[in-house]
């Protein structure tokens, strides 16, 4: 780990930026331990959107009037911030989408439909969120390509020993994997997969929805071809996400959504497509949301993603230690130094719904379910797990409350 010059993050102080914590839930302070599904919002981001609506709102890339120019400038400034956040070589390679899911569908459709066929293989991992699994499974079926999965070992880490066997079965055309698993918190060896994928002549599609909020992301260092993420998991608003793609690939691809704004020229006989990124941004964009996305990135940059990651790793280590003391608990996933701030567990035979419901009465919010990772749940032999996930505003006291809450669950249902 490279030592960072930045001071450690002070979660207790940062909490003051988040109005959501001003309330009580069932008379108790809110312990929000579900940031992996979506993060809470700092006042700075909310204010930026509010101010934009009040002072600069108009459609972008349309009007010649002052307000539209102002809106366009703010929208494009946000694009620059988001692109720089993942070290994209150019903001033109950064496409605003509705969220990571739409970004991944964009690649599956716009690249997959024209480039996949019988004899080809699409390779995903057992750790994928449904959003980077289902579009590829579907596109493989639709084009006649094969569909393969890289499995995980008992620690929830990818077993790269399978790669040669997979490559022997066909022409690998797509390698789609996440950088951080939302179900287990595993940090995956994307660089290695990208290298292998490129050796096969494949495109490498990275789902960074869970990584971007918590872990430094550099598309050039990763060596991938596409990378998708969502604003709402990183202190930004819902309704906007991003796809970064390599320029040559984006330029060669067919469009995804068609309509206004994405065109160059429309004639009765034929339509030609606009330049990047507009070619992939049909219709009115999520304008204020993009501005909010930019403000969220500025907020995260101020704190430093490295500092956020260190904070979460400390919390994960503490959580694994404290939870490990509970009799009958089963913890899933890798050791704390190879995971993000996510801890999945089961409390004996007690159903996660019941665990989450009783914790809710203590003001503690955790996720109970399959986390949109049913293939992984099948591998773990469970229908669902409990998941506590942390962010820059999470404090160790909340983990203590979680542990106390779990003791209460055992008392009621054990």
């Amino acid at each position: 780990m490279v030592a960072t010059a930045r001071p450690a993050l002070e979660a207790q102080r940062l909490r003051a930026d988040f109005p959501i914590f001003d309330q009580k839930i069932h008379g108790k302070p809110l312990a929000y331990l579900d940031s992996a599904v979506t993060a809470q919002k700092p006042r700075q981001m909310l204010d930026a959107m509010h101010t934009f609506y009040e002072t600069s709102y108009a459609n972008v890339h349309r009007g010649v009037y002052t307000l539209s120019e102002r809106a366009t400038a703010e929208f494009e400034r946000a694009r620059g911030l988001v692109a720089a956040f993942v070290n994209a070589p150019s903001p033109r390679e950064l496409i605003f989408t509705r969220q990571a899911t739409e970004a991944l569908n964009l690649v599956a459709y716009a690249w997959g439909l024209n480039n996949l066929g019988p004899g080809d293989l699409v390779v995903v991992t057992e750790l994928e969120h449904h959003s980077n699994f289902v579009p590829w499974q579907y596109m493989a079926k639709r084009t006649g390509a094969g569909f393969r999965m890289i499995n995980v070992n008992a620690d929830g880490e990818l077993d790269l020993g399978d790669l040669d066997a997979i490559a022997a079965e066909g022409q690998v055309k797509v390698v789609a994997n996440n950088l951080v698993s939302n179900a287990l918190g595993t940090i995956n060896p994307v660089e290695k997969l990208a290298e292998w994928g490129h050796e096969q002549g494949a495109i490498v599609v990275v789902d960074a929805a869970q990584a971007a909020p918590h872990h430094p992301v550099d598309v050039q260092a990763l060596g991938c071809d596409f990378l998708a993420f969502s604003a709402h998991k990183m202190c930004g608003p819902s309704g906007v996400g991003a796809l970064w793609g390599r320029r040559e690939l984006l330029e060669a691809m067919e469009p995804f959504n068609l309509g206004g704004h994405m065109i160059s020229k429309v004639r009765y006989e034929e339509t030609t497509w606009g330049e990047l990124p507009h070619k992939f941004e049909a219709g009115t964009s999520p304008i204020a949301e993009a501005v909010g996305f930019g403000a969220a990135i500025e907020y995260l940059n101020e704190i430093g993603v490295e500092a956020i990651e260190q904070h979460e790793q400390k919390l994960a280590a503490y959580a694994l230690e404290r939870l490990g003391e509970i009799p009958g608990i089963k913890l899933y996933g890798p050791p704390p130094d190879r995971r993000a701030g996510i801890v999945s567990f089961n409390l004996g035979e007690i159903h996660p719904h019941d665990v989450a419901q009783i914790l809710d009465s203590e003001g503690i919010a955790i996720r109970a379910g399959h986390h949109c990772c049913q293939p992984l749940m099948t591998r773990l032999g469970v229908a669902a797990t409990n998941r506590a996930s942390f962010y820059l505003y999470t404090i160790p006291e909340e983990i203590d409350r979680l542990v106390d809450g779990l003791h209460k669950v055992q008392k009621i249902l054990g």
Partner: protein
Amino acid sequence: MDDLYREVILDHYKNPRGHGVIEDADASAEGVNPLCGDEVSIYVQFAPDGETVDEVKFSGRGCAISQASTSMLMEMVVGKTAQEIAELPKEELLEEVGIPLTPIRLKCALLGLGVLKVALHRAKGTPLPQEWAGLDELELK
């Protein structure tokens, strides 16, 4: 909350009635709640009249609410005819369950009843209630 896990619920959860499988059942169905991946299968054996439920069992996995409500359902339906069960309003089961449920937990509580109605529908052609259309998250296989 402590209402939610009141004694009778915990009793049915910990000692479910009619838990098991009937081999060669006259009617059976399996359902899953895609929100949480819970699955329940229900098996029905009719009396010699071919209409009255003689024995009913359920298997599968689920939360305390779904397990307890399905267990209660097993007790409620023995001796009723397929038609009577098809017409059984969900409120009657919910009254038995007797706890306030949020929309998401309502799906847990009604999973067993839905699966039972599907099993009877398949075996006897009894109608499926319209309200299942509204519970679109409940995916009946």
